[in-house]
């Protein structure tokens, strides 16, 4: 890539949305995973008893799509929260299972408490922000006196331009008008993302029964969109929960072995078909 090509692209980008909305960097309805989860719970659109995880996922994907950019941080946070939710959900749906592993149980409780604390934090600052907005609106009704001293006092003004040469002024202008390299520039070539857990489930249900033992990395090989990876992970968790696959992760951050459970009955397949992604 030569030095000039990117510049022309940036210029085009600058003449578009970036310059017109310098402050509207990101104004989605939901600003991040906590925000969305908070909304879903408080609106009571989701009863955790029959939590439609896909609904949370799809809602989030829609927001991501609106943002027209995909933030690694956002996706990671989302994944962590989704995993915790699934864990909680599994635990709730299977109340009679003997909780053999106390450590695991405590870890889950801890996860859940952290999530709860973060949701409370999120709610607190959302409310503070609303009050601040109100304060700003009220303050804007009054305009300050900005005229400064009149020309009688001009001679008292120190010369701020001492040492400023015409060349320095020119450089300052060039600095001010040079195309800035926006952080999100690397996303302009990304096509709108279409990804759903339901599609991923369908794909896995077609491939896994015949593929033999495989691994998560193999499944997502060649996939570059992070969200495509996320939905496959969530689909695998769903299959795991339904007993369709065995998942084994030998170490933290290690690959996850995926083994199709051929013993599952056809009734379960029906349930998966109805998965309302």
């Amino acid at each position, binding site marked *: 890539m030569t030095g000039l090509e990117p510049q022309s692209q940036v210029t085009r980008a600058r003449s578009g949305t970036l310059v017109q909305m*310098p*402050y*509207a*960097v*990101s*104004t989605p309805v939901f*600003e*991040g*995973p*906590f*925000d969305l989860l*908070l909304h879903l*719970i*408080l609106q*009571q659109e*989701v009863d*955790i*008893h029959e939590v439609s995880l896909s609904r949370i996922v799809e809602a989030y994907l829609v927001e991501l799509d609106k943002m027209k950019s995909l*933030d690694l*941080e*956002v996706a990671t946070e989302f994944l962590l929260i989704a995993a915790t939710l699934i864990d*909680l959900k599994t*635990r*709730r*749906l299977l*109340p009679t299972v003997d909780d053999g592993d106390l450590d695991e149980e405590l870890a889950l*409780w801890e996860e*859940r408490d952290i999530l*709860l604390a*973060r*949701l*409370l*934090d*999120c*709610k*607190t*600052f*959302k*409310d*503070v*922000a609303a*009050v*601040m*907005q109100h*304060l*700003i609106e*009220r*303050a*804007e*009704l*009054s*305009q*300050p*006196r*900005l*005229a*400064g001293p*009149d020309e009688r006092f001009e001679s008292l003004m120190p010369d701020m331009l001492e040492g400023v040469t015409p060349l320095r002024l020119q450089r300052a202008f060039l600095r001010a008008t040079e195309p800035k390299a926006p*952080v*999100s520039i690397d996303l302009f070539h990304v096509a709108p993302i279409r990804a759903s857990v339901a599609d991923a489930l369908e794909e896995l249900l077609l491939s896994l029964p015949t593929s033999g033992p495989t691994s998560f990395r193999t499944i997502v090989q060649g996939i570059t969109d992070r969200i495509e990876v996320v939905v496959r992970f969530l689909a695998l968790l769903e299959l795991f929960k339904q007993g369709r696959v065995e998942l084994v992760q030998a170490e933290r951050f290690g690959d996850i072995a995926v083994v199709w459970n051929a013993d599952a009955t056809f009734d379960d397949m029906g349930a998966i078909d109805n998965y309302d992604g």
Partner: protein
Amino acid sequence: MTRVTQGDIDPEIVKALEAILLVAVEPVTVKLLAQVLEQPTATVEVLCNRLAAAYDEAGHGFALVSVAGGFRLQSRAEVSSYVERFILDGQQARISAAALETLAIIAYKQPISRTQISAIRGVDPESVLRTLQARGYITELERSDGPGLAVMYGTTPLFLERLGVNALENLPPISDFVPDANVVEALEAGLRVVPDTTP
């Protein structure tokens, strides 16, 4: 102005105070006023408050208010429709919800690092921080001592000015905003591990 200068204060001082406030382009601290007027700060503080009250009482179209740690003259809110018509160009670009929430976190938790903000919001605040810094609402404070020397952020006097608040202490206490019991309960119920067995 006699009502303002009751007692032993030279009317000339009140005149000078009014003249200074008129030429100032940002809130003037009582300390600077005291220095220029060669009066004790306590006296100046009293004078400013009396002057503000006198303007209110006389029904002037301007007011003297204490904001961002100083005193400034500003137009009165009740005639804002006329002032707005006069200075349409002065409209502030609206601040986004994301920026406002980040600003709230910084206001109450300063000094705070980008990572700490990110932990609270679940979103990397980088672009929002840049916007807030560009608008002069936040500033980089000294770097923390720890490893990595994280940049710490805090709010500026301009932030207080925009909010019409005199000092950070005058912001409503954060305890007022802790979600009340039924919200906590709703969240807790949503995340309950053990199935709800109560009827």
